[in-house]
């Protein structure tokens, strides 16, 4: 029974409850406690963590940054490093406690029986060695193959992970491959010695959405055909839903819920899991509502928890929650939840945002017909790396980053730019802020040419246009406190009164969900999400009219992301801010943008009000993007996925930029002629050789959205 708090049993609850005749787990983690120690004290990264993975099972280990999920993965690999230490617990692999093995034996297991794939393919391959050699290394090390035998196996492996010319790829250096190809090569490395267990640490997080979809497909296929078990560490619930049979949810280094993926994601029992699922931006959600978000930030533990770890942020918390740690309550099927109220809360959803959350109804008039647009981009073109030289072999045509892009942004309007890496979306944003000079075309800000103004040294307009970008760590000076970093723009804007500035800073910090006391902290004392909030607060310090958000929420945890999206929406409504919202995530953009540009290879494929872009007719690229959006178990059926080929060559040339990967390519005409732009009365534009009527025949990716009138505008 799950109604009363229970004393915490010493053994892993999942195992204790595994009474049904199931195969013995391949990986059985029990009571794992990990801490990081440095001069300033110790931090608990994992407290009494337990879970089990059965043969052939893929388990998702989900949680936000600071939840300890990667730490646990590294502990299993014996690669903690950096002051990390396993204090207690067992890591049973095939019945053997890995912790009792000497380091050399653990090393021998690594890459052989337990293989890993990490997050960032771009940095996981050694730039100085050929890809083939790196894949061959474990084969030679663990299987005793000769380099020549290994080379043969390497080509087989590369073929197996879907690389079409294995020989060329094996001889290539990592930088010659695309991110998707690099990740395939890493997967091939992991598969080489036919391991039993894969540790996948956010294996697709750094990849483009369309590439991610393919890699997930590949991983699922491989796990199935090789009967692999895998620990899939991820923050992405949609991806977990696609590939994992079971899921374990971590919060603050503590397992809060575990169970079958379908059940946990459709009917989460723990309040934190409820919050996570609710905060996920969904394309199909009613955009007039604010996204549900989880208030507060993850608290860091220094010892074993004395209360429910989630209590400070839990809307259902009571006194009992704060007075004692929660026990894992399990049922016979291996489902477990660490909340004494779980049963009572069974039907209760995560609370909506407070009543004021209903956003100002936005009609077409407010944004589009009010006076002149704030930003006008006309035939913008940007070429990087072109150079003239007297030495003929040095002349270079350069790479086209943006090719003839025109659009406008109205006052108070949010224009989303969706595209993958190399689409030119960031270049567009930088050109709009005069951070890069267009090779051709103009950018008008409030009727004035911003580039020219900045060239003349006039900073007034620039103050009205700010940037928030993804890399939150790089944009803050490590030697300045948060307050000092935010003070500067205020001083530059002529705010003389120090006391008043301090208040403004405190207000801004509170606004972005940080305690005002953070003004005295240094960037390294903040989490990645907190730093990004500081960046947003700083961008807002000068009361700008226009903010370019370049992947501003992409690195943030789901709950924080929802918070920031709500905040940005609020600011837009209250202050009439305009945004250019650049992202790779079409679900995020659908929540905040009024209009969307879908860009590929430096050109706009599709442009229109968000409601139009999400429904047919689709540009073939938009259709693929939408079909790649992962959905949760409870959200309705997944659309058939359109898997794109990996890009073999960079887009460019005379024809359609998407021609090399387009699944609906008509033929030579797509390669040779720039596609015509079909435009409809409501401002929906699609650049494609396929006639609009034919494009409109495709089924909607999100049938829920098919009814145009029900769609919030």
């Amino acid at each position, binding site marked *: 029974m799950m109604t009363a708090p229970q004393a915490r049993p010493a053994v892993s609850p999942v195992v204790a409850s595994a009474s049904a005749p199931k195969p013995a787990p391949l990986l059985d983690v029990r009571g794992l406690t990990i801490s990081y120690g440095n001069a300033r004290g110790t931090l608990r990264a994992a407290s009494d963590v337990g879970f089990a993975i059965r043969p052939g099972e893929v388990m998702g280990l989900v949680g936000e940054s600071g939840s300890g999920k990667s730490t646990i993965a590294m502990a299993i690999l014996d690669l903690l490093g950096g002051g990390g230490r396993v204090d207690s617990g067992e890591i049973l692999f095939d019945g053997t406690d890995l912790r009792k093995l000497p380091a050399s034996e653990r090393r021998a297991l690594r890459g052989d029986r337990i293989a890993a794939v*990490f997050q960032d393919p771009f940095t996981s391959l050694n*730039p100085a060695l050929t890809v083939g050699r790196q894949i061959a290394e474990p084969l030679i090390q663990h299987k005793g193959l000769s380099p020549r035998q290994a080379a043969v196996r390497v080509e087989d492996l590369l073929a197996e992970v879907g690389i079409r010319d294995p020989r060329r790829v094996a001889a290539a250096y990592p930088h010659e491959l695309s991110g998707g190809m690099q990740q395939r090569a890493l997967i091939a490395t992991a598969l080489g010695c036919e391991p039993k267990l894969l540790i996948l640490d956010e294996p697709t997080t750094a990849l483009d959405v369309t590439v991610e979809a393919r890699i997930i497909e590949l991983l699922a296929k491989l796990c199935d055909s090789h009967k692999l078990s895998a620990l899939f560490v991820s923050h992405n619930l949609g991806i977990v839903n696609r590939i994992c049979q079971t899921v374990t949810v971590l919060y603050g280094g503590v397992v809060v819920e575990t169970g079958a993926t379908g059940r946990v994601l459709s009917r989460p029992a723990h309040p934190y899991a409820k919050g996570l699922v609710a905060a996920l931006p969904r394309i199909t959600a009613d955009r007039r509502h604010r996204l549900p978000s989880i208030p507060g930030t993850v608290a860091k533990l220094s010892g074993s928890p004395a209360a429910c770890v989630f209590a400070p942020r839990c809307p259902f918390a009571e006194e009992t929650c704060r007075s004692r740690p929660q026990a894992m309550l399990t049922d016979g099927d291996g489902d477990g939840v660490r909340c004494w109220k779980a049963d009572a809360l069974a039907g209760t959803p995560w609370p909506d945002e407070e009543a004021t959350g209903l956003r100002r109804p936005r009609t077409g008039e407010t944004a589009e017909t009010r006076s002149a647009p704030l930003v006008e981009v006309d035939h913008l073109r940007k070429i990087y790396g072109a150079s003239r030289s007297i030495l003929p072999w040095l002349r270079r045509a350069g790479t086209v980053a943006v090719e003839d892009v025109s659009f406008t942004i109205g006052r108070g309007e949010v224009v989303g730019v969706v595209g993958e890496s190399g689409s030119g979306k960031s270049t567009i944003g930088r050109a709009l802020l005069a951070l890069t000079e267009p090779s051709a075309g103009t950018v008008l800000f409030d009727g004035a040419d911003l580039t020219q103004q900045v060239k003349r040294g006039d900073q007034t307009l620039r103050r009205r246009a700010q940037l928030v970008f993804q890399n939150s760590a790089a944009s803050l000076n490590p030697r300045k406190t948060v307050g000092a970093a935010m003070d500067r723009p205020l001083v530059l804007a002529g705010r003389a009164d120090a006391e008043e500035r301090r208040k403004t800073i405190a207000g801004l910090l509170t606004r972005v969900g940080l305690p005002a006391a953070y003004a005295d902290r240094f960037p390294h004392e903040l989490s990645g999400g907190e730093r990004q909030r500081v960046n947003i607060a700083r961008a807002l310090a000068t009361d700008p009219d226009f903010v370019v958000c370049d992947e501003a929420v992409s690195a943030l945890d789901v709950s924080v992301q929802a918070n920031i999206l709500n905040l940005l929406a609020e600011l837009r409504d209250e202050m009439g801010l305009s945004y250019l919202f650049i992202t790779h995530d079409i679900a995020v953009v659908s929540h905040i943008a009024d209009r969307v540009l879908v860009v590929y290879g430096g050109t706009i494929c599709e442009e229109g009000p968000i409601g139009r872009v999400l429904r047919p007719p689709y540009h073939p690229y938009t259709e693929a993007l939408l079909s790649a959006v992962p959905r949760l178990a409870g959200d309705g059926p997944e659309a058939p996925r359109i898997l794109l080929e990996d890009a073999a060559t960079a887009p460019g040339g005379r024809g359609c930029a998407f021609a090399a990967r387009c699944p609906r390519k008509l033929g030579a005409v797509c390669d040779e002629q720039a596609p015509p732009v079909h435009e409809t009365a409501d401002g929906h534009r699609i650049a494609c050789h396929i006639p609009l009527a034919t494009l409109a025949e495709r089924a909607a990716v999100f049938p829920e959205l098919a009814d145009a009138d029900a769609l919030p505008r």
Partner: protein
Amino acid sequence: MLAYTLTRLVYLALVLAVMSVLVFLVTQAMPGDVASMIAGQFASKEVVDAIAVKLGLDQPLIVQYGHWAAGILRGDLGRSLVLEQPIAPILLEALGRSLVLAVVALAVVAVVGIGLGVLAAVRRGKLTDQLVSGVSYLGIAVPDFFWAIVLVLVFGSYLKLLPTGGYAPITDGFLPWASHLVLPVVTLVLMLLARIARLTRSSMIDVLQTNYVKFARAKGMPESVVILRHALKNALLPTITVLAIDFGLILGGVVVIETIFSYPGMGRLLLFAIQRHDLPLIQATILIVSAAYCLANLTADLLYAFVNPKIRHGMRAS
């Protein structure tokens, strides 16, 4: 790679051409004039003028430069006024001795410095690391001539183990040749070692934290392979550049050290030429020193590109 090398060679030629003009002009501006120096203190004006005409000193500067430059292009560096010999063989000899010094010193620096750097990085924060760091600080803080003097006093004057100066050609036998090299080489090593060790240490520490090193460990590679194959190769990039530049420096003559040990390399030759106002010798020496320096830089860049596939391929593509 070829295109890149070609480009760099073109630049090298340009730099040297500019250098030659500068060298020529600077030496022209130096006090004293060649003709009266050759003629001697008491020569009459007629004699001086005659010598000037003979040397072509009466012609416009641009013509003089043309003659000089044309000579160099033919491999004729002119004649030394003081030594009254063709310059080329003198220079070549000095350059050869500097080359010996540079090769031996840098070989030691490379092996010991990189070794210490790697060791310190791998044992980061431990006693070995602190020792290496401490000694490195000392090496950087103390000026090179101090070591030279200490070494001369201890090994030469006090212990009388080694010759304190001079040079013995290898034709005199290996031992005398080597014994003359020991002290200058040790001084140079002391001077350069610290920087190489520290540089290697810090880039090694960076590389050891990269994902590809983590991934190599996740593949179960033994630590020695991780360090030598995966980390060191990447960590050496900056070190290589500095080593090559140091090479150019020694080749171009390390005046202080050559003077203290009376080592007849490029540095001493240049000093001699300047003290004696031997204009053609000064011009030729400086030009060769610049060329050596530029070549060392070029080698550094080419080496860097060669070790770094990213650059190597970028060049092939262009």
